[in-house]
């Protein structure tokens, strides 16, 4: 979380303070390449959006020219690695207090190099107020965009592109957030925006939405009426008052009307019969806290009731709530949730959004970027560059919560290719990739966070070693360590910060942090060396397999597949052995038995693929699009396949006849989310009518997809390279998972 230097700025008042120094390293990153700007100015917070390009290093593999095959020596690597600069697109969103607007605009003006930018999209109630200031400072023309249109565009965008965007709020569970898996079909839904008033919008498609109703009793009523009743001026303070009050002192409850008889009548005595019903008396004083609480209940219940009536009228069960009344305030999320549950009798779910505060800015940005077609791409939340959801414990006072003075960030990377569901998922809406929810499971969470902390030294060492020619590798690696360490500490405090915490999200966060500091593929050299060794072993392995009888061979193939999987630098138990014993080899791994590059792909996967090809099965071999640990990438797999084809006629002809197809998964993670797969892979699966899915590796078959239900046969294979997990699953270290599933008829 990027805290701004000026702390406690909640008291800095409304004046624009020019003396504020901004921490530019952290908050306006990539500004020099920024080209599209959008701004959403609300009542107290400004959200700035811009599109920029990020230049970072990527490790590319390239095959040597093999025209003179005999020149190849044993010690030569099988392919060359070159580090190239790659430019990718990134969306930056920054949220800060309106107090900082002028300082921020000055900063942008000073750092904005791109002179092509002429227009800034602006939305929000404050857009009008600050129009002149923006035009003067940035010399950009302000284009005003409709608030609700922006909000809905933004909402559609986050629902489609950010996993675990939506959550339900449960007051008594720890943590209080329960994230929803992304629904493949986000429409139709109801958006209830609680600003000063309430707007209820039915959203049917990307471009079609309709204002179905509203109410004047909203956040402004709470604030305005609350200020009159309690003489408390600030919204946050009113909420804080409310969280300490007793509404039953002010409200007339059912039990006040019925006496004790409500029980025999089956009525809940605590229901409010008449809000403020007890204050109709001249001879009693009421406490500020009690009145604020009563007001909060009155307004939340009323909004919840109207939302339910609209949901019912339009037969909708998904209702998203946003607006400043909700914005991360546990008190209001709680009362709204209660109200929705009460009035809908559980039929409607009150959903909240992690990036609710950014919807307007995202929408305004998308409006301005329509010619770039941002909706045709898939986007991914960059965990390294995003602040995550704040701790919003109701016990903290508004000052302690330090919502103000904080620059909150969201960064989204544009993915090169669109991501879609695996067509073979049995029930896409209910698919949950992750096996263990660490948000939920405190014991597992503690274990894994510690595990990642302990592994950090090794990762840093590996990162430095991967770039021996770089002068600043050590320095960057240290920055990486700091960043990832801080993320882990944040997650210890706020496991819900980036949605459901899982082993996958911890791994992905580490990859994002590594990329951030230009360590795109710390294992590229290791993989290169291992691939070289493995390729030389391949003919021997295949020869010995071919001497076996059918049954023996199948067993040996599976053993090979699993043996290869032992070589996992991500697993601490393995990396300890590998670091200490460079001669630890395939035979040893096979003896230890109980997807990675090198040995895994070449000596494990390819013989298995070859067997399938021999029996006439078509094979789609999907590998990661980008690097993650020592997992083989699509690029590497192409070279490896080419080299194997040179040695093996079976693979050779299969490649030529397109019975063996090598594609990318769309993932750059050691885990796999089958709801976010490369569109090309999905198309191929459909086209070829795939009827067996083999998922290999601990990350893809155990941490994720262990429970994934497919509508065809599937085989999940992995070696449990973690003692704790092995114990959890009822086995021992290096136990084997070999899970063959046939879908129920």
């Amino acid at each position, binding site marked *: 979380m990027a805290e701004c230097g000026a702390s406690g700025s909640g008291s800095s008042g409304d004046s624009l303070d020019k003396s504020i120094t901004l921490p530019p390293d952290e908050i306006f990153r990539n500004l020099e390449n920024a080209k599209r700007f959008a701004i959403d100015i609300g009542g107290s917070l400004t959200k700035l959006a811009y599109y920029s390009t990020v230049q970072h290093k990527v490790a590319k593999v390239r095959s040597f020219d093999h025209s003179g095959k005999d020149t190849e020596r044993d010690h030569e690597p099988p392919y060359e690695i070159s580090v190239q600069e790659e430019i990718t697109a990134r969306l930056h969103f920054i949220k800060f207090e309106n107090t900082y607007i002028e300082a921020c605009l000055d900063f942008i003006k000073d750092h904005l190099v791109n002179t092509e930018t002429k227009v800034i999209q602006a939305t929000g109630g404050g857009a009008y107020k600050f129009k002149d200031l923006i035009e003067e400072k940035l010399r950009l023309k302000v284009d005003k965009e409709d608030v609700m249109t922006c909000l809905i565009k933004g909402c559609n965008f986050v629902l489609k592109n950010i996993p675990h965007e939506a959550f339900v709020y449960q007051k008594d569970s720890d943590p209080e957030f329960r994230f929803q898996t992304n629904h493949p079909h986000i429409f139709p839904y109801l958006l209830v925006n609680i600003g000063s008033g309430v707007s209820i919008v039915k959203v049917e498609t990307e471009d079609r939405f309709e204002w179905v109703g509203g109410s004047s009793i909203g956040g402004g009523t709470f604030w*305005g009426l609350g200020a009159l009743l309690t003489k408390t001026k600030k919204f946050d303070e009113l909420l804080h008052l409310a969280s300490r009050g007793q509404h039953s002192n002010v*409200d*007339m409850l059912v039990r006040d009307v019925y006496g004790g008889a409500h029980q025999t009548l089956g009525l809940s005595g605590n*229901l409010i*019969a008449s*809000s403020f019903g007890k204050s109709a008396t001249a001879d009693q004083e009421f406490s500020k806290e009690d009145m604020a609480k009563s007001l909060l209940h009155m307004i939340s*219940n009323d909004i919840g*009731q*109207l939302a339910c009536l609209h949901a019912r009228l339009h037969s909708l069960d998904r209702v998203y709530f946003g607006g400043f009344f909700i914005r991360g305030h546990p008190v209001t999320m709680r009362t709204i949730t209660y109200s929705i549950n009460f009035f809908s009798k559980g039929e409607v779910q009150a959903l909240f959004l992690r990036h609710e505060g950014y919807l307007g800015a995202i929408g305004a940005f998308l409006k301005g970027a329509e010619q770039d077609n941002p909706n045709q791409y898939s986007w991914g939340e960059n965990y390294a560059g995003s602040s995550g959801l704040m701790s919003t414990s109701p016990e903290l006072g508004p000052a302690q919560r330090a919502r103000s003075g904080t620059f909150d960030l969201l960064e989204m990377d544009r993915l090169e290719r669109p991501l879609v569901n695996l067509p073979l998922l049995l029930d896409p809406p209910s698919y949950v990739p992750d096996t263990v929810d660490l948000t939920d499971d405190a014991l597992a969470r503690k274990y894994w966070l510690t595990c990642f902390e302990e592994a950090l030294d090794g990762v840093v060492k590996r990162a430095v070693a991967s770039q021996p020619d770089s002068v600043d590798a050590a320095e960057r690696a240290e920055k990486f360590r700091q960043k990832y360490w801080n993320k882990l500490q944040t997650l210890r405090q706020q496991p819900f910060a980036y949605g459901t915490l899982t082993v996958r999200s911890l791994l992905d966060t580490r990859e994002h942090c590594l990329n951030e500091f230009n360590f795109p593929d710390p294992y590229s050299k290791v993989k290169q060396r291992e691939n070289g060794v493995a390729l030389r072993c391949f003919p021997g392995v295949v020869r010995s397999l071919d001497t076996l009888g059918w049954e023996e061979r199948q067993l040996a193939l599976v053993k090979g597949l699993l043996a290869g999987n032992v070589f996992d630098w991500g697993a601490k138990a393995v990396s300890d052995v590998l670091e200490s014993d460079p001669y630890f080899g395939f035979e040893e791994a096979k003896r230890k038995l109980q997807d990675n590059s090198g040995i895994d792909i070449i000596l494990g996967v390819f013989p298995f693929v070859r067997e399938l090809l021999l029996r006439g099965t078509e094979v789609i071999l999907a590998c990661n699009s980008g690097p993650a640990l020592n997992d083989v990438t699509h690029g590497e797999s192409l070279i490896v396949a080419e080299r194997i084809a040179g040695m093996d006629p079976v693979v050779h002809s299969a490649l030529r006849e397109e019975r063996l197809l090598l594609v990318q998964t769309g993932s750059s993670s050691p885990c796999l989310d089958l709801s976010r797969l490369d569109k090309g892979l999905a198309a191929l699966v459909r086209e070829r009518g795939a009827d067996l899915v083999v998922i290999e590796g601990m990350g893809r078959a155990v941490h994720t997809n262990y429970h994934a239900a497919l509508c065809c046969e599937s085989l999940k294979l992995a070696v449990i390279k973690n003692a704790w997990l092995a114990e959890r699953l009822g086995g021992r270290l290096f136990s084997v998972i070999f899970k063959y599933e046939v879908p129920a008829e």
Partner: protein
Amino acid sequence: EPLRRRASSASVPAVGASVEGARRDRLGSYSGPTSVSRQRVESLRKKRPLFPWFGLDIGGTLVKLVYFEPKDITAEEEEEEVESLKSIRKYLTSNVAYGSTGIRDVHLELKDLTLCGRKGNLHFIRFPTHDMPAFIQMGRDKNFSSLHTVFCATGGGAYKFEQDFLTIGDLQLCKLDELDCLIKGILYIDSVGFNGRSQCYYFENPADSEKCQKLPFDLKNPYPLLLVNIGSGVSILAVYSKDNYKRVTGTSLGGGTFFGLCCLLTGCTTFEEALEMASRGDSTKVDKLVRDIYGGDYERFGLPGWAVASSFGNMMSKEKREAVSKEDLARATLITITNNIGSIARMCALNENINQVVFVGNFLRINTIAMRLLAYALDYWSKGQLKALFSEHEGYFGAVGALLELLKIP
């Protein structure tokens, strides 16, 4: 078709077979001899309870009492009449106010009513619920229990005060379901009319103070009907026939909220005072209107500039808080609560597919501002599909229903 539930009651057996559709029994009439046969009169005489005839509705804020004063008492009957009964009759009919808070709504009195074969006047009396102990004490002082009368009571207070009636007043309450009583009362009162005039009415041109007219409405086809009872809180019922109805929903933002907030914001002490202040105030100083935000109509959503965008929204600003009067605040409170009830009622009507909405309850007493606003809001937001109806005896239907139960009038 919406799920309908058969009316049920907590303490009274369900009423006999329902008469679906438009046919309604005329149980009494305001003028002349009725068509009730002689035989029926005889059987009524045997079944009818002893005087006095009361119906009581004890709400969260107000107690509503209806009293039938027989006008056809024969000399011999008068002779037999016990002293305490006579004194009650005299006390109730010769006064228009009781103690410091009890009031008889003389203008609502229904004259020459025939009930169970007896002719008389129906009186409507109200007093605050917090004076209930004094009322019970009075019953004790006047020795009510010696009359062997049955007290039929409805409303939450029938439960809350049951024990007090018994221990202090030596009176056994017959507790009745409030929604049953409400519907019964409305249908009955509408059928007898209002001393020759229509009971039910609506507003034409409600938004225009010059052209606004209160006009009688003939509720000859009452079903289906959305009934919105605005007391301290609000109950909304969908009524499909005399004894087929369901409670659709309710809201805690009702008359009690209006009055309670007014007390806190303006220091007023009576409902009348609150309304009087509201009549002189300007809510647009307190509320943020659509035009305050968008400079005019919000065309993207078809919202008119005059619509309230945020109730009390202007009060977020310190300057504006300092610039408003108590009258403005009272008016804004009234507008806020009324608009909200209108909006919930409209949504219920849509969900239940009903287009006549009858608003009753004491919140509407002497509250033309609220009634006209409800009439206008319902018409405007439904594009003329919904009609807001009102009834002269606003808050007394529960009490009337209780009286009908006493008389076993189906």
